[in-house]
């Protein structure tokens, strides 16, 4: 867990985020059109600056939980607090990144990246901020390009820049790399973790891919299909250098998590 950030890092223009914990208390949710709860009695505290993976099969309610944290769905019961502030709806302090980049094709790369700042009415320094986040995702030279000319991976990088521009404390990822090819996906997984660590972001990642969790997360929380409850919770103690598929400690950690995951499904 990264509670302490070097002050030199925090002085950087893009490194304004961080220092927000996420407290989920008694969250339960039932959709009007579905019988039975998708989530029940979820209690979870996530330390500031840590990366947590929510792992579960489809129907485990992991995506619903992420939408609740983002303020995009109001839970039937319970509450979420981010950095002490109750989540009542979407906010530039907690931003979700979706599976599809869904960039606006009538806007340039820079305009897309600056959307959150525009909505927040932030004009001062907005252009510099957009340039900074595009630089962060290695797309500085693409600022004036049409988003339709970009590859899928580049588009998802623009979506990442768009999420980072409002300097959120918490970044929520809803399987954002699952539509990408394997090589692009791996580089995005590594880069996003590095960026989150550099900015001191708290990050919550929804995935059904255990290896993605081992690559990116400090902690894995397993949701059980059908029940909508937390059925497993473990820290992933890996050095960042070991977070690649060639490292033996990575393989051991992957095997350990896979065992927990399969155990949950059969139990």
């Amino acid at each position, binding site marked *: 867990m990264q509670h302490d950030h070097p002050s030199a890092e925090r002085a950087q223009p893009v490194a304004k985020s961080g220092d927000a914990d996420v407290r989920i208390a008694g969250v339960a949710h039932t959709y009007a059109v579905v019988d039975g709860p998708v989530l029940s009695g979820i209690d979870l505290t996530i330390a500031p600056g840590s990366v947590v993976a929510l792992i579960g099969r489809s129907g485990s309610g992991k995506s619903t939980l992420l939408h609740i944290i*983002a303020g*995009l769905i109001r839970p039937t019961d319970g509450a979420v607090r981010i950095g002490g502030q109750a989540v009542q709806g*979407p*906010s*530039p302090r907690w*931003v*979700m990144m*979706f599976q*599809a980049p*869904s960039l*606006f*094709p*009538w*806007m340039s790369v820079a305009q897309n990246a600056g*959307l*959150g700042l*525009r*909505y*927040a009415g932030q004009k001062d320094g907005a252009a510099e901020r957009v340039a900074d986040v595009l630089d962060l995702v290695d797309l500085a030279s693409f600022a004036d390009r*049409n988003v*339709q*000319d970009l590859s899928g991976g580049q588009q998802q990088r623009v979506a990442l820049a*768009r999420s980072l521009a*409002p300097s959120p404390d918490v970044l929520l990822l809803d399987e954002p790399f699952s539509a990408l090819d394997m090589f692009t996906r791996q580089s995005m997984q590594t880069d996003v973790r590095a960026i989150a660590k550099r900015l001191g972001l708290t990050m919550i990642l929804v995935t059904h891919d255990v290896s993605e969790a081992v690559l990116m997360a400090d902690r894995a929380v397993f949701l059980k299909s059908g029940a909508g409850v937390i059925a497993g919770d473990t820290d992933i103690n890996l050095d960042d250098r070991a977070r690649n598929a060639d490292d033996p400690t990575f393989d051991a950690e992957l095997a350990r998590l896979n065992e927990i995951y399969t155990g949950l499904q059969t139990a």
Partner: protein
Amino acid sequence: MTASADLSGARVLPALGRYRGLMNAVIGMSLLVFLWWLGGRAVANNPDMFAFASFAPGPTLSRLWVMITSGEVWDMTLPSLYRVGLGMLIAAVIGVPMGILIGRVAQLREITNIPFQFLRMISPLSWMPIAVMAFDTWDGAIIFLIAVAAIWPILFATAAGVRRIDAAWIKVARNLGANPWHMLTTVILPAVATDILTGIRLALGVAWVVLVPAEYLGVTSGLGYAINDARDTLEYDRLSATVVVIGVIGFALDTLCQKAIGRLNWNRTSE
């Protein structure tokens, strides 16, 4: 035939291909004028109809030239453009917001569907007696008729465009903290701009058709009035010259709309 002749022929052909569209347009126009000329000949040779001989291209085009140089064309066109412009503006000011609401709110769509389909099918000209009673001025009545004709294509095209908006765009905007005004100006309007313009283009076609009979009403200006007036004074060359003016301006307005649509279209794949 020699090989070199073949080669030079092959070299000329791509150059011709570049002008193919223009050439075909010229061929089409020539064909139309030729048919017009044939009709004029037939009328002139018919003892029962020779009084209408000045409908032919020759008298028409020379009269058109006189009308252009004397400024008569502008005098009769400007009032018509004013009426169509104002009618279209009213139709857009009502049609676009209504279209957006109907596209976004399913309940509103269901409530308005049958009444609007019913109203849409009524010929705008059948409102004429009501328009004449309801408005103090002839101009007001004509503008009303044009607005009634133009509103439906704009409204339905806008609503259809709004329904096709990618729900993920709305979600992304909401997630980034967009308020309803942001949603309208950064998502909905840019997303449906070409749909709105396509509706306006269709509406303009209808409005331009409705204009002429509407101007048969009491007004003493405009293209429709000019046609009626030429008939009453038996100046058939002036009548057919006015018909040419109506066609040319209608075509020009449609071309302008098409250019605007091409400019606003953000979709690369449909180009």
